[in-house]
Each structure stands twice: as C-alpha cells, then as structure tokens.
C-alpha cells in the first residue's frame, strides 16, 4: 500500500468510527464502549509492560479503585461525576505512587509476583468494606453529565469513551516520542545501561507505574458511570490477567496494540457467550479455558501480538532527517581545563575472600588515550565498574575532575561528564538509531513527563534530534538513522553505542572492550574514530583485550595482573617489559 492510499484508508476508518452510532444498533455500540474502556486499561499495560518491561497482573485492581472512588462519591456523597473523575485519578495515582514506592525496587520476577499479591488484596478489600457495599457493590451510580450534556445513552457514551481513549493514545504516543518516553523504553536494557545515561531507574519506573494506574483509574470511572452499578467481581485478579492478555494479544510493543487486543478479546468473549451456552451449561468456565489456551498459544507462537502483522500492510515510514539546529542543548563546562581527568588512589575490591582489585592507583591526564589491559581475570572489568560507579570499591578513592566520586551513584557520575559503553552492547533493538542516540542526550535536556505528553518542548526535542544526527555523522552511521538498532551488525552497534555516549557531551569516554568481536577492517575504522575524538579534545579510557588494537592506539598503557598493577607506560615500553610478557605468555619471551 502506498502512503497516500494508507492515509485515505485511515481517514475513512476514522469517519466510519465517528458515524457508527447512526448505522448500527445499540448492542454493537455497547460492545464497542466496553472495547474502549478495556483498551484504556490495556493501554496502561502497554506502557508499563510493553514499553517499561514491568509485568503487572494487578491492573484490574486500579480499574476498581477508580470505579469505586467515583461511585462512592457520586452516590453516598452526591457529588457530580466530574469530581468523581478527579477523585478517581487522584486515588489511583496516589495508590500507585505508594505501591510503586514500596515494590518497584524489586528485581526480576519478584515484582510481577507482588502485583498478584496486592491485586488479590485490593479486590478482596472492595468486598469487605461496609461503605463500598461489601459484596453487593454500589448501585444507582449517576451517568456522567457535563453542564447540560448527559451521557446517558450508549451512543453518547460511545463518543465520551472514544474521545477519552483517543486522547490517552495521543498523550501516550507523544510521551513515548519524548525524552522521558525514551527513558521508559530504555528500562528493559537493565539498570546498568539506564543509570549510565543519567536516568534514574526507580523514578522512571515509578512514573510509568503511576501513569498506567491513572489510565486504569479513568477506565474504571467510565466503567462505573456506564454500567451505573459496580461490584467487586470485575476487578479481581482474573480480569487483571485478561487486561494483560489484551495487551499481549494486540501487541504490547505498540500503542494500537491495546485497542486491537481489547477489541479481539471483547468480540471473542461476546461470540463465546453466544456460542458456548449451546454446547455446555458451564459456558463461563469453558470461556476461561479457551482464554487460557489462547494465551499460551499466543506466547508460544506470536509473542509480538497481532499488530506486527497489521503493520506489515502499512507503508514503511520514511522519516525525514531532523532539521539542523545548533547550540541549544547545554554543554559540559570546560572553562577550567582539568590537568588530571581521573585519579584512582589505592582502590581495592573484594568479593568475599577474593581480592579482585588490589590497591591499584593510576592517573588519567586530560586529552590522552589510556589503555587498561591485562589477561583474563586481571580485574579490568571490576576496576571499570568502580570507575563508572556501577559497583563501589571496598576501599580507596576515585577522583573525577577534582571531585571525589568514590561513593557517587553511576547516574551522578554521568552528569559530571563521564560516558561509557558496554562490553556486551546494550542498545534498544526496537528503537531507531536516531532514538538510541537521542537517549544519550537525556542529561542535557529538561522536558518532563507532562511536557512530553503535551508536546510542550518541541524546540528542545528538535535540538536533541539534530544533535543525535550530528553524533551519528561523527561515527559514520548518519545514512541509516531511521533503521532499527537491532538490525545493525555488531561493529555498527559498537559505533552506535559510542555515538550515544557522545550525545551526552562527555569530557571522558570510558570504553569497555570496544574491539571485541570486530574484524580487522572494523578495528582500524574504530581506531581512527577514537583518534579523531581525541583530537577534538576528548579524554578516552579503554579496557581492552586486543593487544594489537591497543598498541597502535593509546598514548599510555596500564597493565593489570591478578588484581594488581603490573606496569605502566607508553606502548613501546610495555612491549619490552619482561613481567608483562611473562603475565601474557607464561614465560619470559
């Protein structure tokens, strides 16, 4: 399909959706209203699970909190539904903030398990609180009304739900394309990578958790005022899992996935409810069996959901290269040049009884390329982690640009002007090259979550993209800026990581085995890039395995062996050093 044709299809689709209540009957509209309401909750999960990598089984509990908050205020307290909406957003946001603060530091599988626990606990609470009507729930909830307009009929609800959903999708899509959105999408690369870019993992996780909770809360508000009656049953764990099923079935990596998934599951449910009673008296249970099996098959055969199949029909978006803008993003303060960039004083790192790094001291002068080499197990990576703040040394001191950073967290060190790459490349395979590099500019920009969702910082965003493009040009990847990072060969991925670290405008670049896995030609290209960067004033520290690569590149070498510094000096001197030869070859050559 060509692009104009695709646009026409989209336009016709939108017009058809808007005209639908005039064409089809009430039942279909009611069904679509449910699709919209479920899609809103599933959209929260797309952001949380698909983008942020945090699996939650408890989304239904948040829908319940929103529904109950508004239902209680509009019945027992007689307040208008719009106040109910404010309360729904405030309570879900507040509960999410609280729960998130407690659980989001958990790693791996503990987090999703905790969502099962509070998912059950919250839905049980609804059934046990007198004011919420216990298991009978709350009846006679008024319809939403704004001034003279009352959303009483299914048709009017259709437009309310549709507009709310469209608004939430627009905000989400903006957010994901913004600075904090990129941070959310980077979460799945693991804490080491995220924090090295100056992004706080905890804060970003908490924010996306609260956003997902608020979407669920609004979904619950719509649900309560459409049904006009609520009870604890639809907010149980089972529904939470259905929301997850929707997100995964549609495609948790795409905003549209929530809508497609919600539609699929809701229509399937409707069909099953028509068909199953003809076959068995236990249709509700058979329904669950079918869902369960469907879910398992989906995860076994199409983990990406339906959307990737649909997107193949859409034309490939060929984004134009970003406009050239200069000098908007702040730069590192280089007014007082540092004579000594980095000083390591008697750093020791112990793992239990094992001394991985033993009293190592070294100095890195501004503007030089220093290589840190040594045989396997010499303690290079441990020292590297101590320098970048990924892991703290047991004793000793690390001074970066005159500041003691021994106990400073990685993301604060990054803010001081240190950028790093990883031995096993850590990129976002499903983000474009440009977006991957833009991620590196996180510390040089300010736009927050709300600003991103409302597109308030367009000038800054344009500057970030222009700068990212410049970094891609520096490493020679500019022509592929729109490609997905996952499709690059390893050598280009390493260059892309360097481009990302350059986007942070660092004064010190720390590279972890940049030549590992590269072919000779690729190594030469990398070496010439590093030379060029040094001439532009960058200081470079690299940990390396590959002697040939290092010898022709660096100004000085520090050799580690068994955790201790063995030698230090220019390459020629190191080459002649008997102890070094012994360490590498086992005997004196």
């Amino acid at each position: 399909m060509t692009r104009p044709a695709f646009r026409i299809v989209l336009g016709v689709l939108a017009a058809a959706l808007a005209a639908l209540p005039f064409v089809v009957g009430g039942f279909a509209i009611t069904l679509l209203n449910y699709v919209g309401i479920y899609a809103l909750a599933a959209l929260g999960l797309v952001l949380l699970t698909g983008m942020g990598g945090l699996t939650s089984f408890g989304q239904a509990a948040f829908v319940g909190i929103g529904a109950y908050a508004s239902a209680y205020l509009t019945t027992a307290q007689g307040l208008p539904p719009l106040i109910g909406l404010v309360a729904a957003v405030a309570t879900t946001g507040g509960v999410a903030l609280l729960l998130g603060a407690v659980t989001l530091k958990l790693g791996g599988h503990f987090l999703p398990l905790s969502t099962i626990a509070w998912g059950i606990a919250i839905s049980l609470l609804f059934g046990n609180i007198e004011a919420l009507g216990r298991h009978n729930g709350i009846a006679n909830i008024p319809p939403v009304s704004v001034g003279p307009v009352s959303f009483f009929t299914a048709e009017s609800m259709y437009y309310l739900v549709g507009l709310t959903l469209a608004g939430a999708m627009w905000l989400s899509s903006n957010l994901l394309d913004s600075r904090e959105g990129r941070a959310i999408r980077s979460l799945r690369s693991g804490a080491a990578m995220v924090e090295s870019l100056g992004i706080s993992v905890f804060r970003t996780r908490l924010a996306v958790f609260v956003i997902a909770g608020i979407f669920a809360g609004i979904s619950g508000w719509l649900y309560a005022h459409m049904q006009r009656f609520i009870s604890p049953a639809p907010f149980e764990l089972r529904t939470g899992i259905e929301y997850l099923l929707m997100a995964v079935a549609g495609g948790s990596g795409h905003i549209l996935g929530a809508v497609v998934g919600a539609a699929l599951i809701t229509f399937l449910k409707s069909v099953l409810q028509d068909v199953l009673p003809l076959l068995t008296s236990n249709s509700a249970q058979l329904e669950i069996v079918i869902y369960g099996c469907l879910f398992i098959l989906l995860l076994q055969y199409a983990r990406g959901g339906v959307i990737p199949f649909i997107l193949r029909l859409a034309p490939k978006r060929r984004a134009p290269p970003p406009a050239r803008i200069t000098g908007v993003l702040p730069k590192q303060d280089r007014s007082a040049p540092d004579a000594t960039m980095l000083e390591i004083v008697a750093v020791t790192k112990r793992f239990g009884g094992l001394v991985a790094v033993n009293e190592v001291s070294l100095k890195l002068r501004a503007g030089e390329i220093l290589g840190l080499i040594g045989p396997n197990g010499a303690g290079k990576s441990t020292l590297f982690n101590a320098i970048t703040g990924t892991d703290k040394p047991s004793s000793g001191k690390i001074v970066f640009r005159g500041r003691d950073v021994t106990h400073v967290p990685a993301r604060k060190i990054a803010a001081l002007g240190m950028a790093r790459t990883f031995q096993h490349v850590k990129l976002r395979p499903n983000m474009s090259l440009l977006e991957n590099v833009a991620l590196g500019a996180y510390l040089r920009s300010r736009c927050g979550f709300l600003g991103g969702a409302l597109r308030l910082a367009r000038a800054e965003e344009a500057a970030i993209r222009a700068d990212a493009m410049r970094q891609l040009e520096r490493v020679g990847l500019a022509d592929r800026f729109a490609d997905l990072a996952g499709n690059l060969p390893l050598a280009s991925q390493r260059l892309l990581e360097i481009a990302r670290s350059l986007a942070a405008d660092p004064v010190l670049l720390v590279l972890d085995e940049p030549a590992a896995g590269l072919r000779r030609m690729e190594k030469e290209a990398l070496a010439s890039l590093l030379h060029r960067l040094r001439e532009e004033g960058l200081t470079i520290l690299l940990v390396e395995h590959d002697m040939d690569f290092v010898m022709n590149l660096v100004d000085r070498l520090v050799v580690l062996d068994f955790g201790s510094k063995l030698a230090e000096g220019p390459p020629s001197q190191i080459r002649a050093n008997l102890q070094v030869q012994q360490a590498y070859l086992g005997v004196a050559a």
Partner: protein
Amino acid sequence: MNLEIAGILAQDGIANGAIYVLMAIGMVMIFAVTRVLFVPFGDLSAFAALTLASFQLGRMPATVWLVVLLSALATAAELLRIARKREWHAAHKSLALYLVAPNAPVLLTLLLAGESMHAAAEVVLSIALVVPIGPLLYRIAFRPLADAPILVLLIVAVALHFAVSGVALLFFGPEGFRTRPFVSGEIAIGEVVVSMQVALIVVSSVVFSFLFFVVFEKTMAGKALRATAVNRIGARIVGIRPFRTGGLAFLLGSALAAISGILVSPVATFFFDSGFMIGLKAFVGAIVGGLASYPLAALGAIFVGLLESYSSFWSSAFKEILVFGILIPVLLWRSLAFAQVEEEEEELDEVET
C-alpha cells in the same frame, strides 16, 4: 486471647504451615530447575483431594479424563516434534513416557472403579492419578518456551492456572468435598493436647520433606536436578538433558502437590478452585523464604500458616488480605536487605523488521 486459645491457634497454624511447607518446597524446586513459577501448583493439590473424595463416594474420579486429555495433547505434541525432526527411531520412548505411563493409573482406576478399596489404596491411586499432570503440563505448555524470559513463563503459568481450573469445574462440578479423616482422637504430648489429624499432617510433612531431601542429596537424578538449578548451561555441558530434568522436577513437584492435597483434604472442604488460594499462600511462604533455599522456604511457609491462623482469630474477613498484604513489606525488606545481582532484563518481543 488466653493461652489455651493461643495454643489451639498455634496448632492450626502449624498444621497449615506444614502443608504449605510441602508445597513451598515443590514450587522452589520447580522454579530453580525450570525457571517456571508454577502457579497451578495448588490446583494439583485440589485435584488430589477431589480425586480421593470421589473414590470415597464410590464415584469415578474425573481426574482420569483430565489425565487422558493432557496425555493426548502431550502425545500429539511429541509426535509432531518427532515427525518434524524425522526421529521415528526414538518414538517408542516418547509414547511410553507420554501415552503409556500417564494412562497406567487411569486404566487401573477404570478397572477398580466401583469396587470397594482399602483406604490406603484409594490414597495411593489418587496420588498416582495426579502425579502425571505436572509433567504433562510441562510438556504441553512450557517446553516449547524453554528459552523464553522468566516473565513469559510466569504469564503462561498464570494462564495455565485459569485453563486448568476451568477444566476442573467442567469435570468435578461446583460442589465442595471433604474426605473422611484418616485418624481420629487426640494425643497428649506432655502438657499439650494435639489432635491426631494435626499430628498426622505435621509428621507426614516432616517425613516427606526428609524423603525429598534424601532424593535430592543422595540420588543421581537428584544431583542432576541440583546441577541444573545451579547452572543450566553447565549441566547441559556435562550431559544432563534440561528437558528431562525439567520433567523430573515437575514430576516430583506434582507428587508433593498431591500429597499435600491429600493431607489437607480431611480438614478443609475442597472446591474445584480451592487450590489456587492455598497454592498462593504457600507461594507467599516460599517468597518470604527467598525462593532459593529449601529450609528458608519451609520456615516462611510455617510463618504464613501461623499468620493466617492468628489473623483469622481477630478478623476472618481480613485474613486473606493480611496474608497477601504481608508480602509487600516482606518483599521490600528482602529487596533492601539483600544486595541485588544486576540481571539482564529480557526482551519480550523480537526485533521487527
């Protein structure tokens, strides 16, 4: 609360805890070996209890149809795999494992149904019927996903629970059952009077935990399980087949689930879906213990049993809320008290081209 009530509650709590211990051990083992958090674990316990109840009522236990169904699915999956790889020479092994072995207790049940059996025979047959369910579910649902991230396995486990409990309702119906007590009366241990039923549960739990320990520490199969748990790739290199140890872990786990279901069946009424809650509580116990060490998991399970029993004294409505609510501070404490190993977050979806 006086001392007497406190004593009764403690007994109750320890009896519950003893059941959770068996289940927690099984869950921790399955997780360590296969990385699957086996959410339907409690369902298997419920099946064992319901099967025993059916035998006692002189009915044909519906478990047989469940096993037949799962065995058919697993055999079909195996045949498909064999056909694709053209490994017909190894077909007899697959058929023996997935068709003959699971259906042997089914056949026995069909032959013996209606006849009056010794109580012990009923118990043994109930366990034998439930034991194949775990490995069959592993073959059908988890083996095709062996390399998937833990989170995907977890989502599958949750979905599996819903599928399995739905099937259970179709087969067992909505009524609840309680089995006849195995023993009656009370015994006095010093000053304390303990009901025989509680004593039986605690003693059985200790015995089976010990047996489990022996299997794990002393047998070759147990060592293979431990090796896989410690380092999956390393185990593979020394010739331990991951799918075989996975199946074995599910087999042992299944047995533990069945035994705990049988033990608790005379003191609690079982419905088709009762297992989920019991399983989740055992889970909470296992997590309190850290999902890594068996003795700690056991301690955690007993803690949950006691918590449940004492909280039900103060407010039975909030009992469940408390048990699940406690998980959050516990998880928080664990995450703060134990330095986290940086683990790679895995991709849920593949790169789209």
